[in-house]
């Protein structure tokens, strides 16, 4: 059983500061962490492996330092990992990213089961998982909140969460699933895992290594382009209600009555 978990290194939301004046990120001292939803993907992959056997391989596309994310995944129990890294990947949108990841998975010998976090907290698109499933030619179920292995280990029965509740769906392998936080409680690294992570050799694959078509990666392979960026402005319409708490509440009630709400 070949299980792949796709992870992404993202800026730690807690350490990112924003310069509102200039509209730029203050990157000094920003730590990189594994995307939070990806921990649930890793845990799901490990649980299936522990039940059905096989190998869990973590794949990430990013700069060379994304190797840290792979090491952390190995410390959690992932068997092996690979960093897909090349300057030619820069500027990739989700279409180019899914192509690149699919070429890496192809080089790994394909996948019986793929887990991705439902979205990365830096881009928030939630597009890579479903897009990747099309590249791999396998079914995809997004936002799973619960899972169990089907009788005979042929697939998974999952709760696909939606606005109204959930759908209980069954999918046979090979398949791809995207995970949400309530799916599981990710384990913490063991001492043995940490030792293994330290010693692990993490291959770095370039565009050439995975046999990627140069026209389908990075900026060239990305249909979407950023035309411009700007800092959002919020309409200022502030009226501060003054006085004692009683007077403040009275003033508010009056205004809401005036607006026809009360």
């Amino acid at each position, binding site marked *: 059983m070949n299980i792949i978990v796709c992870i992404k290194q993202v800026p730690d939301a807690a350490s990112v500061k924003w310069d509102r004046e200039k509209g*730029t990120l203050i*990157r000094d001292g920003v730590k990189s962490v594994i995307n939070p939803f990806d921990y649930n993907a890793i845990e799901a992959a490990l649980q299936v492996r522990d039940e059905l056997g096989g190998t869990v391989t973590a794949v990430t596309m990013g700069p060379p330092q994304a190797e840290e994310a792979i090491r952390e995944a190995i410390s959690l129990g992932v068997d092996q990992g690979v960093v897909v890294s090349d300057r030619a990947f820069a500027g990739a949108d*989700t279409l180019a990213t899914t192509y690149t990841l699919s070429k890496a998975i192809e080089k790994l010998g394909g996948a019986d089961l793929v887990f991705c976090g439902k979205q990365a907290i830096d881009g928030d698109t939630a597009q890579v998982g479903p897009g990747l499933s099309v590249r791999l030619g396998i079914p995809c179920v997004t936002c799973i909140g619960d899972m169990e292995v089907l009788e005979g280990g042929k697939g998974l029965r999952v709760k696909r969460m939606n606005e109204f509740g959930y759908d209980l769906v069954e999918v046979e392998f090979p398949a791809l699933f995207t995970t949400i936080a309530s799916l599981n409680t990710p384990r913490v690294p063991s001492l043995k895992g940490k030792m293994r992570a330290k010693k692990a050799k993490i291959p770095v694959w370039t565009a050439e290594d995975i046999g990627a078509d140069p026209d389908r990666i990075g900026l060239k392979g990305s249909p979407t382009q950023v035309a411009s960026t*700007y800092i959002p402005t919020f309409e200022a319409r502030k009226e501060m209600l003054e006085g004692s708490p009683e007077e403040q509440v009275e003033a508010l009630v009056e205004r809401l009555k005036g607006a026809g709400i009360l």
Partner: protein
Amino acid sequence: MISVDKELCSGCGVCPDVCSYGAISLVGDTAQVDLDKCTLCGTCAENCPADAITIEREETGSAAELDQWRGVWVFAEFRNGEYAPVVFELLGKGRELADALGEELCAVAIGSGSRDQAEVLGNAGADRVLVADSPELEGFSEDVWARILSRLASEQKPEVILAGATSMGRAFLPQVATMLETGLTADCTQLEIRAEDRALLQTRPAFGGNLLATIVCPNHRPQMATVRPNVFRAPSMDFEDSGNSGRQIEIDEIELSPEDLKSGVRVVERKVEDLQGPDLANSQVIVTAGRGIGSEDNLKALEQLANCLEGAVGATRAITDAGWISHHHQIGQTGATVAPKLYLGFGVSGAIQHLVGMQGSEIIVAVNKDPDAPIFDVATYGIVGDVHEILQLLLQRICKGAGQTGG
């Protein structure tokens, strides 16, 4: 790739300042790009006063090829026996875009029972409805929906496809975009047509809403975008008001082959849960708890206030992450986007990630003990004060027979 013309670069220092990725620095008097950090977003090139920075992009689509794609499509999500509210919001926006392009607006409905209600899509502005209706389209399967929509799009070549960023839209639209090898922009908050080249300008929040980025898809068609519920307003469904009176709509039923309906995803049970209280998306009043709410007793009082205003309870991420209330109530970048008539925030500081999810509200009332809380910058009415005290006073004033609940 990105390059800096050393002759033109004056070393003015603008580009390192505007780069959100910290990828540019001045080395001597010339800008230098760190390619490991650069994402080729183009902000530097746009801001360079000397036009010294160029980003080479491949022109792949020929104008004649792109020109064959015409018209605006809205995916008409049909679930639990009705069209999702976001469909009407998108038809309103889609009508504007189609008029700007001088093309037709077409709604594409997929689902068992969708045919019977298709006329309502015309009332909201569609010229034409494409319907794929079959008893076998009862439970949603990503692969079937993606196959049907992408087949129709490659046959009929619309230049724009819009869909709601709902659990369904987010699940299969990326598959459609991948099948069509085109771009898809998630969670757009503004959409407009650039007259000179008919490009769809798709604006979405980036970096947790700290920045807005306008995305284009210049060389591929269709141009695809998802939009969250409650970002655009639905048009009036009243015939007289809406200008849709007497609109002739054409309903095309699509023939489906067994091949179209084959799925690797089997829905064995559908569970519609009773949500506690009115839901965020459909409420005219939302009372929101932020970190400054302080205690669960205050949260109870807040729920009581929401109850007597017939409103829903919202929460910031801090409150849902703390487990005080379920994630269904979360408003903001990683939660719901809301636009009620009245938004009341108690102890909400106003982090940008929250503001992007509620700034469309008509009247925003903020109660916070910190006079410098950013929420006051967007509030219609602000009260600097103790959350507990103001809540209790409001309960006494507005809700008959209510008052102290504990604390």
